[in-house]
């Protein structure tokens, strides 16, 4: 970039959904991309840059849309960026419109809106090959002449035509601005012109929008700038137009599509008979009532089976790495608060998050393939009727189902839902689906209380019931939300069914990489902070009543235990007893320490609250400690019921000590009865004990109020659910 003529050319990329816009963006911007966020809204844009012929291009990828009529603050942000009125982005020098050549008429709708803005435009015609397969012939030169802008045929997935496109972008900056096409009736344009005179040089484009859309969003902006009189003039103009017979509803669409028919009449050639395409043949099976449904079930099964099975070796590897690192730290650093913070707080905390990464990467690879190939739209079509019952649409199905693996990717997957209320309702209920982190909790309780002495089908049925609970409650809550807090326009399902295509590996990799990075980066920082807090609450105070330090005692006992275990008379009965005694002492010290820690004292304080659920203070405290990440309860129960630190849900000593645990107030009375065990499971099934989920909700809704709402409603639901379970269970089982 030494040349003095070199300059930065800012390009805004816009287009309809399903036109290959992200594929083109990835092909142009390459690896160096970053995400742009805007205050107060949930849209995000991607930005990248590339060099061509000594020019530096900065390209911004705006969300795919069918029209520039802004219906929400989110869409307004995109329109402002295109118009160069955004406070966050500099105005674009060129607008690159991508259109699907096989679906030219509808794609020209947005194009015609862009042409009115008055910024140089380059039209990239993608999927020329698909158009050819359908027998459609597009005369690009003729189209360029008619529209008055350069038209470049490309195949973004095969990287064809990109050099020509870049050259056209570089030339477009110097080209004369396109003269806006005459689309609207003269009467309408006269009103636009007279209104524009009353403004401070507003673009005719925005005046047209204001007149046609008549939504509060645009009116309030103009009211702020030009006062109430201006708005009254707008209303008067609307009335005059209506009296003249041109009703405003549909005026824009009718005018634009009439213009489009004119444009395409001499540059789009259709065959006499539409040939049967590959997509038609596939859909004979894929959307068939029987075969389509069976195929759908098979696809879902493969997705979930692979999330559980393929991820396990990777998860084990991460777990082993975490243990190894923690062990290495222990050998390198002297025992003390700092080492404990590093091991129990940071390595455990961050490791506990990273362990979900394989599942997220696998799920996102599937989502990217299913979406890019066009199958996702078919799944939404098949499932829409079911989802409609709870006020959602077919687009909510995949995110909800994904949440059975983990709510974090499930919530990220809601980005495919355009309707804001539907998307929000889906985000808020997704954490109710039983995720894989609940499985260790269910496994522990079922193995300890519902296996021995019960019929063979009891464990399986209980586990199934726990999953069913989420599957039943989530749609009910969604239905309730859509009827109250998120009440809005009638839910609709107007969706384009894209043609099938081979997923582009580049796009799939990109999606997987973005999802993984975002998860690690954003959710990881919150969970790290919470884990450090929980660690501190469990660590301090560390002085025992005799003035010694618990942590020093624990380290000393651990060392003695290790020494005993390594001594040569390994098999002698005497040694075994010694080891057991030492182990008991160690567990006793650990238990005492946790009991008088700040979290332990909090546990005592919450006992009156958890007693109606049939729980003692230790269960309350373990539950409290597992609010950042629910699977923590397995380890915490081990610590407080004096088993030791190294337990997992398979550990039979943990089962034994849970079964024999008694109330401190009444040593003859067992804590865990079957109603208590069930009430614990129901609580964990319904409660949002996952800092990562809450962090992702914050991130996706761009507000703290929704994660707080989710937390409060789910905790309340969990409490009520556990209360009812305990009391009904006690009443039934005596």
């Amino acid at each position, binding site marked *: 970039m030494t040349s003095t003529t070199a300059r930065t050319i800012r390009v805004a990329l816009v287009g309809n959904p399903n036109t290959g816009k992200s594929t083109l963006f990835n092909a142009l911007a390459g690896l160096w991309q970053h995400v742009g966020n805007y205050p107060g809204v949930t849209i995000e844009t991607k930005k990248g840059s590339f060099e061509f012929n000594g020019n530096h291009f900065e390209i911004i990828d705006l969300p795919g849309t069918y029209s520039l009529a802004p219906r929400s603050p989110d869409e307004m942000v995109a329109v402002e960026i295109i118009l160069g009125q955004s406070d966050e982005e500099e105005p674009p020098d060129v607008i690159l419109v991508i259109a699907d050549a096989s679906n030219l008429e*509808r794609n020209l709708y947005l194009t015609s809106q862009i042409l009115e803005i008055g910024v140089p435009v380059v039209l990239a015609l993608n999927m020329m090959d698909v158009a050819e397969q359908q027998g459609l012939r597009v005369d690009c030169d003729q189209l360029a002449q008619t529209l008055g802008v350069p038209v470049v045929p490309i195949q973004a997935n095969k990287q064809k035509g990109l050099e020509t496109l870049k050259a056209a972008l570089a030339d477009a900056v110097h080209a004369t601005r396109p003269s806006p096409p005459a689309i609207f009736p003269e009467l309408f344009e006269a009103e636009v012109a007279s209104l524009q005179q009353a403004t401070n040089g507003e673009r005719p484009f925005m005046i047209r929008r204001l007149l046609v859309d008549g939504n509060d969003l645009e009116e309030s902006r103009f009211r702020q700038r030009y006062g109430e009189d201006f708005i009254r003039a707008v209303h008067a103009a609307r009335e005059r137009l209506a009296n003249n017979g041109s009703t405003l509803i549909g005026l824009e669409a009718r005018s634009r599509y009439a213009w489009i028919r004119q444009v395409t009449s001499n540059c789009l050639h259709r065959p006499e008979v539409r040939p049967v395409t590959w997509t038609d043949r596939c859909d004979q099976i894929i959307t068939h009532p029987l075969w389509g449904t069976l195929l759908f079930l098979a696809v879902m099964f493969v997705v979930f089976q692979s999330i559980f099975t393929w991820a396990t070796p990777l998860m084990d590897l991460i777990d082993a790495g975490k243990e190894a690192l923690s062990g290495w730290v222990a050998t390198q650093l002297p025992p003390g608060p700092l080492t404990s913070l590093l091991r129990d707080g940071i390595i455990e905390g961050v490791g506990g998050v990273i362990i979900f990464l394989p599942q997220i990467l696998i799920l996102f690879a599937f989502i990217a393939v299913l979406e890019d190939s066009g199958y996702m739209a078919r799944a939404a*079509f098949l499932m829409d009727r079911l989802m*409609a019952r709870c006020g959602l649409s077919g687009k909510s199905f995949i995110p909800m189902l994904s949440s059975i693996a983990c709510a974090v990717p499930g919530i990220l997957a809601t980005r495919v839902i355009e309707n804001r209320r539907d998307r929000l309702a889906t985000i808020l209920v997704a954490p109710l689906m039983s995720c894989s982190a609940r499985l260790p909790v269910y496994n522990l309780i079922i193995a300890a209380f519902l296996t021995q002495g019960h019929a063979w089908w009891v464990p399986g049925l209980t586990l199934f019931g726990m999953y069913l609970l989420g599957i039943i409650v989530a749609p009910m809550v969604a239905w309730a939300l859509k009827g109250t807090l998120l009440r809005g326009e009638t839910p609709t399902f107007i969706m384009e069914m894209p043609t099938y295509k081979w997923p582009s590996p580049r796009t799939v990799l990109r999606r997987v990489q973005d999802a993984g990075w975002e998860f690690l980066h954003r959710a990881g920082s919150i969970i790290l902070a919470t884990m450090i807090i929980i660690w501190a609450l469990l660590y301090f105070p560390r002085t025992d009543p005799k003035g010694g330090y618990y942590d020093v005692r624990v380290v000393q006992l651990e060392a003695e235990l290790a020494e005993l275990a390594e001594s040569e008379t390994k098999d002698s009965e005497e040694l075994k007893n010694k080891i057991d005694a030492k182990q008991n002492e160690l567990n006793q010290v650990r238990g005492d320490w946790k009991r008088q820690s700040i979290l332990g004292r909090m546990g005592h304080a919450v006992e009156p609250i958890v007693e109606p659920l049939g729980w003692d203070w230790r269960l309350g405290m373990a539950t409290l400690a597992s609010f950042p990440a629910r699977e923590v309860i397995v380890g915490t129960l081990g610590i407080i019921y004096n088993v030791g630190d190294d337990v997992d849900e398979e550990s039979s000593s943990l089962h034994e000590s849970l079964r024999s645990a008694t109330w401190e107030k009444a040593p003859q009375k067992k804590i865990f009865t079957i109603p208590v065990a069930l009430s614990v499971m129901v609580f964990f099934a319904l409660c949002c004990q996952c800092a990562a989920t809450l962090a992702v909700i914050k991130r996706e809704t761009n507000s703290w109020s929704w994660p707080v709402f989710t937390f409060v409603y789910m905790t309340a639901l969990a409490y009520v659910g556990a209360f009812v379970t305990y009391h009904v269970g006690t009443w039934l089982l005596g």
Partner: protein
Amino acid sequence: MNALSLDKIPIGQRVCVDAIQGDDAIVSRLFEMGLLEGEIVEVIGIAPLGDPIQIRLRDYRLCLRKQEASRVLVSLVA
């Protein structure tokens, strides 16, 4: 002829759009998507549970629920 709406059309039938009833966001959405008076569309699929339906419109396929389709008045085309 007046009573015929898009939700009652069997698969494979081509129809001409006569009118779309209403003036809300759904109607302007359908307009934007190119479903206008005078367009010829073909019903090409109905989901297994009976709703939504899939139509061919201009050079693409559009899905919509029967509730929305019932507001699209059509007449049969050979």
